[in-house]
């Protein structure tokens, strides 16, 4: 610790922000920028909304409006901020991407700009501007994309489609269409079908800084046959002039499936992990050693693994596949996150140095590790630890301990035998499990209909999985481990 005063140390802890604010955003969200309308008008509006909701109980108000009107203009600044999970999703887009490919989405500004109906389910559309004049978008539980820079706003629209296979002819047909629109002149989207009919697709146009339109459409079941399937999607302006078209060509006949006879390919060994990262780690460096390895990581996210001793672990890994990477524990938008990236190495050779370059994890790292490719069974011979765990910080060390405990519990609860016994009456299940496995680190307790499995980490953190009638109803092992 340096000789800084308490005040100086606190200054360092939360540094100034410096960026401008957005007072207009405050006013828009508080709905104070609008003039007050007469109370009677508001009442009529409220009644109309009520009628709309009663008329279409399955959809939200926005869906109702989208059904009526081809284009719905949405104010970005008036829209609701996206939930923190969504903001984090936009933030994570940078993970693993080299700087020039990272979308640089401004996750904190992500907004929910509409609700669409996809396969009969209401799905949110979320958008976020990027730092270079572009935008990213995401339909809930579906696809999304990014136009990273202002220069990427080319073409009038981008269309993605989902496909289904027609059950009788086994031909593929377009079943879902969604995408973005870059021209503000767009006023309508029309889908033309092979039978000569057409349908209008509603879309939203989101104001600056997004300045783009978005649509999502599930093709009706009646148009999932060869005679009625989607032929093209057309974007037009207010005068009906075509701005863009995406056509779909299908195979004219079904190609009979022939047995595939191919020469076995030449065995080409995949390139192994380099002995050093592309550029050496830069200062300030992080150094740590554990389990026979020394790891040096740089502020540029370059990492060098050097084996300094042969151990039982390195002997066991020799000649097998491994995963090697580093992580940082953060809280993004209030969500505890293990920010990590790793590389696969098909053939670990004891004694060989390994180096790699990460992108988007951020430094300082809390730790690095080597995982065997064999996975984990219960009971795990590494006590549910990874083969090599190299913590850089106390937080990293605790994470390794907590993850091992959470993994141990998760592996136990999800083993086939325990899954079967979970369906028994709680008291009998507890008796049977103790009879088979004895009283180990995992504690099993019964509370009414609930069977609770718990394990305490050496750090004091207690992980639990609560099962009712065989199904997991409560758990706290994520993001350390996965249980089902």
């Amino acid at each position, binding site marked *: *610790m*340096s000789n*800084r005063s*308490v*005040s100086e*140390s*606190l*200054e*360092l*802890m*939360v540094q*100034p*922000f*410096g*960026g*401008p*604010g*957005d*007072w207009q*955003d*405050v*006013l828009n*969200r*508080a709905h*104070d920028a609008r003039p007050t309308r007469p109370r009677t008008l508001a009442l009529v509006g409220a009644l109309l909304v009520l009628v709309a909701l009663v008329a279409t109980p399955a959809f939200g108000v926005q869906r109702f409006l989208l059904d009526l009107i081809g284009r719905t203009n949405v104010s970005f600044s008036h829209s609701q*901020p996206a939930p*923190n999970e969504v*903001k984090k999703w936009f*933030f994570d887009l940078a993970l693993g991407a080299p700087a020039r490919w990272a979308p640089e989405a401004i*996750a*904190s500004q992500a907004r929910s700009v509409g609700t669409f109906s996809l396969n009969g389910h209401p799905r949110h559309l979320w958008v976020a501007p990027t730092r270079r004049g572009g935008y990213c978008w995401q339909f809930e539980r579906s696809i999304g994309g990014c136009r990273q820079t202002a220069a990427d706003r080319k073409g009038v629209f981008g269309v993605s489609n989902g496909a289904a296979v027609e059950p009788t002819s086994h031909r593929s047909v377009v079943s879902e269409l969604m995408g973005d629109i870059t021209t503000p002149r767009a006023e309508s989207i029309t889908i033309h079908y092979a039978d000569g009919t057409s349908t209008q697709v509603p879309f939203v146009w989101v104001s600056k800084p997004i300045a783009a339109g978005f649509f999502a459409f599930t093709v009706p079941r009646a148009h999932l046959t060869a005679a009625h399937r989607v032929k093209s999607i057309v974007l037009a302006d207010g005068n009906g002039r075509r701005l863009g078209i995406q056509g779909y060509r299908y195979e004219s006949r079904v190609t009979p499936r022939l047995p595939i006879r191919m020469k076995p390919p030449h065995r080409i060994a995949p390139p192994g992990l380099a002995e050093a990262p592309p550029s050496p780690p830069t*200062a*300030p460096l*992080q*150094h*740590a050693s554990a389990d026979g390895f020394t790891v040096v990581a740089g*502020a540029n996210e370059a990492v060098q693994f050097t084996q300094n001793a042969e151990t039982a672990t390195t002997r066991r890994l020799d000649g097998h596949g491994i995963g090697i990477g580093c992580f940082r*524990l953060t*809280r*993004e*938008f*209030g*969500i*505890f996150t293990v920010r990590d990236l790793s590389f696969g190495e098909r053939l670990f050779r004891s004694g060989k140095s390994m180096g790699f370059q990460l992108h988007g994890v951020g*430094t*300082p790292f809390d730790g690095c590790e080597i995982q065997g490719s064999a996975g984990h069974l219960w009971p795990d011979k590494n006590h549910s630890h990874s083969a090599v765990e190299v*913590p*850089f*910080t*106390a*937080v990293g*060390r*605790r994470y390794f301990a907590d993850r091992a405990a959470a993994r141990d519990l998760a592996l136990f609860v999800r083993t086939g035998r325990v899954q079967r016994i979970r369906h028994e009456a709680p008291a009998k299940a507890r008796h049977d499990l103790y009879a088979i496995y004895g009283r180990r680190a995992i504690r099993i307790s019964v509370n009414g209909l609930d069977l609770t499995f718990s394990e305490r980490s050496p*750090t*004091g953190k207690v992980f639990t999985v609560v099962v009712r009638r065989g199904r997991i109803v409560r758990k706290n092992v994520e993001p350390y481990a996965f249980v089902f």
Partner: protein
Amino acid sequence: MKRDGATLDQLRQIYERRLDELRRVAAAIVRDRELACDVVQEAFVRAVRSRRTFTGDGSLEAWVWRIVVNTARDTRAGVWEEIPEDLPASSASSDAWERQAVRAAVERLPERQRLVLFLRVYADLDYGTIARVVGITEGTVGATLNAAHANLRQALAEVSS
């Protein structure tokens, strides 16, 4: 003198003049810089909506600070806690390590001490305003600050030795 609400212009002036300090205090409470920006925006949305309820009992700025602090505390309440139990090893860069060390020491302070400290260090508020924001007397502000400094000095000295 009792006033009948605050004006949008008064709130805007506080927003523009104090934005950085407001964000820093929010960041210190919620421990997330991105979230802190959201907290301040949300707090001002609340302030604008309820500006007519400001009675003039105390300064408008103290009223705004109280909203920001309460919004940040509400936000933090819904956030998963990962409070470091001991201090990080010194292998990371010295600034990053020091930030974590200070953070760990600060997290161990009682909440009132933390809050008073943040408002004093990051916002440079006087004792009177801090008292109104936190809901304590000016004398208690001084004593709380002294206790916070003493606790921090002791925690950080233990790390140095």
